[in-house]
Each structure stands twice: as C-alpha cells, then as structure tokens.
C-alpha cells in the first residue's frame, strides 16, 4: 500500500487519486458499474490515503444509518392511519 504526500498523482488500474476521491461516494453507495467498481476498489486497497479516506466515509455513513433507523412511527399515529384506511374500506 502506498503512502504518499502528493495525493492525486498515483494511478492503479487506470484510476488516480483524484478520480478515486471524486467517485468515492458512488463507490461506497454501490452505484458504480462492475468494471469501474473493481478498478476503484483496487486503487483504494493499494493507496493508503485513499483507503483511509474511504474507511472514514464508510464509517461515517454507517453511523448516520445507525443513528436514524431507530426512529419509529408513533403508535397512536399508526392506529389513526389504520382507522382511516378501515373507514375507506381496508379489510372490509
């Protein structure tokens, strides 16, 4: 794994650091096509600054997800919605 000061000039599989960082979120979000994802993964695995950046962003996104998924619909609201839908014919 490379550790370099001049971030932005390193190439692995045709992907340099600038390209890797500009597409980092697409990569982490699983939005890249297979070929590009594979090349970007290869770059990130071999380039220490990009790896550290990707690791930070990945853990940040996981923290955001974990913080919010616990919020649930209030029980009273759920019952009110169901009552409305029953009045409309749900389950009739």
């Amino acid at each position: 794994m490379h550790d370099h000061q001049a971030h932005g000039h390193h190439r692995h599989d045709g992907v340099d650091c600038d390209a890797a960082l500009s597409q980092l979120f697409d990569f982490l979000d699983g939005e890249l096509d297979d070929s590009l994802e594979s090349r970007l993964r290869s770059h990130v695995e071999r380039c220490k600054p990009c790896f550290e950046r990707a690791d930070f962003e990945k853990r940040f996104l996981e923290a955001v997800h974990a913080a919010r998924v616990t919020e649930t619909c209030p029980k009273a609201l759920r019952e009110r919605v169901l009552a409305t839908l029953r009045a409309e014919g749900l389950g009739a």
Partner: protein
Amino acid sequence: MMTDAPDRPATELPPPAPAEFSAAAIAAMDDVYRFARSLTRDAVDAEDIVQDTYLRAFRSWRTFQEGTDIKRWLFTIARNVFLRSRERGQREVTLDDDASAAAESAQAQEAWVRGGLDPLLHRAELAPAIDAALAELPEAFRTAVTLVDVEDQSYESAAEVLGIPVGTVRSRLFRGRKLLQQRLAEHARDAGFLPAVPTRSPA
C-alpha cells in the same frame, strides 16, 4: 372485499384494496414516518403527511405496479403531499446557494473535520448529535441524505422520489454529507472532544 361506500357516489369509489396493501404498505409506515419527519422537521406536520400519504396510497393502490419498490412509491406520494402542503411557495432554490457556500467552507476544514470526527464515529453518544445535525440541514440536502443513507434508496430511486436528475441527487448527497460532518465536528468541539478550528476566519 369492498362492499359499499354510502358517503360517495359510485363513480368515486376507491379501488378494492388488495391484501398486499396492509402487508407491504403498512409495514413501511416507520420508513414513511421517518421520511416525513425529514421533510417537515416537525412531528405534528409529519403525522399529517403520513396520514395523507396513506390515504392517497390506498385510494390509488391500482396505480402501484407490483414488483416495484413500495417504499419508493410511498416516498414519492409523501413528497408530493409535502409539496402541496407547503403552499406558501417557499421553494428550495435558495437552499442550494446557502449550502453551497457552507459546503465550500466545509471543504476548507476537511482535515480538521475528518481528524476530529474519526475517533468518535463508533461512539453511541454520537447518535443524538447526528440526528440533530441531520434535522438542521437545508431540506434539499436533508431529504437526499435521508433517502439514501437512512432509507437505503438508490440514487435512481431518490431522483424519482424528489423529482430531480440523478446528478443532482449525487451533488446534494455530497454537499449534505459534508455539511453533516462539519456540524458534527462543531458539535464535538462544543462538547470538548475537539480543539477549536485552526483555519476558521475571524469573520
């Protein structure tokens, strides 16, 4: 099975509700509620959005294409309900500009933000701060981040729900996430986890 609906003429009868409505749509109510909260930032308003969303969804159940993502469908309805409820004409155009400046500022402090947040990300105590910071984001960014990061929607799905191009989802996500990180770092500084920002301008 529907029988009759005495309050309305026959031509306005809602479509028969298939059993799947309760199985799939109602099971997604937590997700719809969270999304409504992210749209409105207000619990009471969010409840109105959820109520109206389910009523509209129920009445237009026939338009839902089986096999497609029901959360995407419900989020789209919720978003439309929200926009209609906001009749004052206050659109999100200016929000992009405000947050653009803020995002640039965030970029300048990237190293400080990342260095400060990194050791905190695994801590459970950060969850309320994340929640509060997300609620404070301008709506355009908050909804994009909520759809993709909280509700696990694809860029394409978020674009459909928000009625914007995929490229706009991508840029809003980037800005929204960076703003969120900046606010979290400020929270960490205020809580004593981080030193003051070294690069902040005196203005």
